[in-house]
């Protein structure tokens, strides 16, 4: 767990430094405002810097077991990570989410949702594909119809606009 804490700490340090650098570029307080937009973000950046440093510092200490690296041990490589089926599923699911967000504006809600749902269902199911497709398409059309007609909402029609829906 120490390595995880150290990783979180280093990430926090990086974020706080970037945040502080962006804060420094903010304009100074305008006339009539003694504080301006800078001080509060500056305090937050410093707070994260201190907390992250404390977290990293807490992972270094005398006689803490697990800190000394075992001979031959190292961070698990990408190949080792991908050998775990669960992690592969997660990476693939993230990939499908990226496809979903990318296709959303031009393919429309119904088509992109059906595509993403079908892809995600097939990630962990090797059986018949037709029921999965039917559920994905049916759900997407139902949700589109619900937002379009019942809630008078605005989900992008995309390719369904060709069918005047």
């Amino acid at each position, binding site marked *: 767990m120490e390595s995880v804490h150290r990783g979180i700490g280093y990430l926090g340090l990086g974020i706080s430094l970037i945040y502080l650098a962006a804060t420094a570029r903010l304009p100074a307080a305008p006339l009539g405002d*003694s504080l301006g*937009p800078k*001080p509060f973000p500056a305090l937050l950046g410093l707070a994260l810097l201190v907390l992250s440093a404390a977290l990293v510092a807490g992972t270094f200490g005398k006689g803490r077991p697990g800190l000394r690296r075992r001979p031959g041990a190292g961070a698990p490589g990408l190949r080792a990570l991908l050998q775990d089926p*669960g992690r592969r*599923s*997660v990476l693939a699911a993230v990939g499908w989410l990226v496809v979903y967000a990318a296709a*959303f504006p031009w393919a429309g809600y119904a088509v992109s*949702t059906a595509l993403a749902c079908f892809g995600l269902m097939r990630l962990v199911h090797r059986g018949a594909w037709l029921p999965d497709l039917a559920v994905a398409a049916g759900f997407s059309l139902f949700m589109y119809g619900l937002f379009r007609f019942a809630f008078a909402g605005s989900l992008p029609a995309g390719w369904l606009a060709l069918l005047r829906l």
Partner: protein
Amino acid sequence: MGSEALVQGFLVAVQPSNLLFLFLGVLVGTLVGVLPGLGPATSVSLLIPLTYDMDPATALIMMAGVYYGAMYGGSTTAILVNTPGEAGSVVTTLDGYQMARQGRAGAALAISAIASFIAGTLGTVLLSVLAVPLAGLSVQFGPAESFALMLFALVTTSSLSGDSPLKGLMAMVAGLMIATVGVDLQTGTPRFTFGSNNLLEGIDFIVVVVGLFAVGEVLANYQDLPRSAGERIRLQGRLWITREDWRRSWRPILRGSLVGFFVGVLPGAGASVAAIIDYGLGKRFGRERDRLGTGAIEGVAGPEAANNGAAVGSMVPMLSLGIPGSNTTAVMLGALMMYGLRPGPFLFEQNPKLVWGLINSMYVGNVMLLLLNLPLVGIFARLLNIPPRILLPLILGISFAGVYATHQSVLDLWLVVLFGVIGLGMRKAGVPTAPLVLAVVLGGTLEQSFRQSLQISMGSPLIFVTEPLALALMLLTGISAVLPPLLAWGKRNRPRARGRQVAVSPDR
């Protein structure tokens, strides 16, 4: 304000449109509670875009119905599948699933519904009694006191969440940083927008909530999906309790209701904490202590009363002080602000119908839930037949629809994916998400109070320690930040101390 406000509130609560949306809310809440993966906080946040054209009272009545409805529904999955449907039912699995394995699933589900009803109703009575005096107290709050109160709520939540107060505080600061994105309200200066017009309005809390809770949870489930799913017990037999069951349960129900309510009032200590505390009290002091964990009905009655009590209790600080007591009330607070309503005494004075309509609707909602859950629990249980591989993508489809409907912004969808990955990472690294969400909701108001305080004091930070109420709250904040690590340190060192005593004492 007195009986007239109560009567007005009841008249609002029983309006046909409000009754309809209350029913929809409790129904959706029960479904959300039964199905793992979609909690009440996410569900309420997804409903918000649909409520823009609604009367705020109706919208809040529906959202509250979703919240305490989920507490009812969560026990179904906990009892039949040994998996909590929502966080508040995690303790119910300990005895509830054992009861189901012993052929007593019906009794477990029945006592769960009855306990939830009693706790919900009792909690609503306490809410009616406590909310007004507490709101009156907040009249004395100036910017410094408001800042100190919000900081206390944030730090307490951060310290109580997760296994490391440091990580909780880091999550809190990260949430406050997210809240600074957008145009600074006082000066009109864009901050951290990196030239993007879409970020000028900041990052909506709905995007953060849906990303962290819904998408993050779904991604986490994909990791376990290939080898998941426990045995599901089929519901058979009578859905009722015996006289002996009631004799054993009424004390734990009463204890759980009160414990849950007062724990729920505390910021950051939600339904799951309340249920765990109640179970611990039962294990320590209850008549049932030797039976807990073996399928004791008390182990279902007490925690289920506690989680429902906490759900109602968390509304006390939200309505009176503008401080959410849980994730879901944090989202509801965000909704209140979106409707232009400011919690506190002014809410009770200027919108009595809204507040008392909401409170009184809970009496009706609890009756609806008892009537829904007792006869219809078998139908809800059938939802558990939906394989996760089908359910999880549908949750993502609902999430994307809800988020896009908020601002019609594609950037929001990318942010939801980003926060989903962040939420997954936070889960794996043991970083609590509740402090981050709370900070995003309160961040803007916290900064405004901070700046107003320093403007009043001509830039002197001593205003936070010279005002008596602010000083008291800052001291409490300090205690809540320091106490958990101190207690943990004490616990780690206690065995060594005992060893030294044994070595020193000549009589051993």
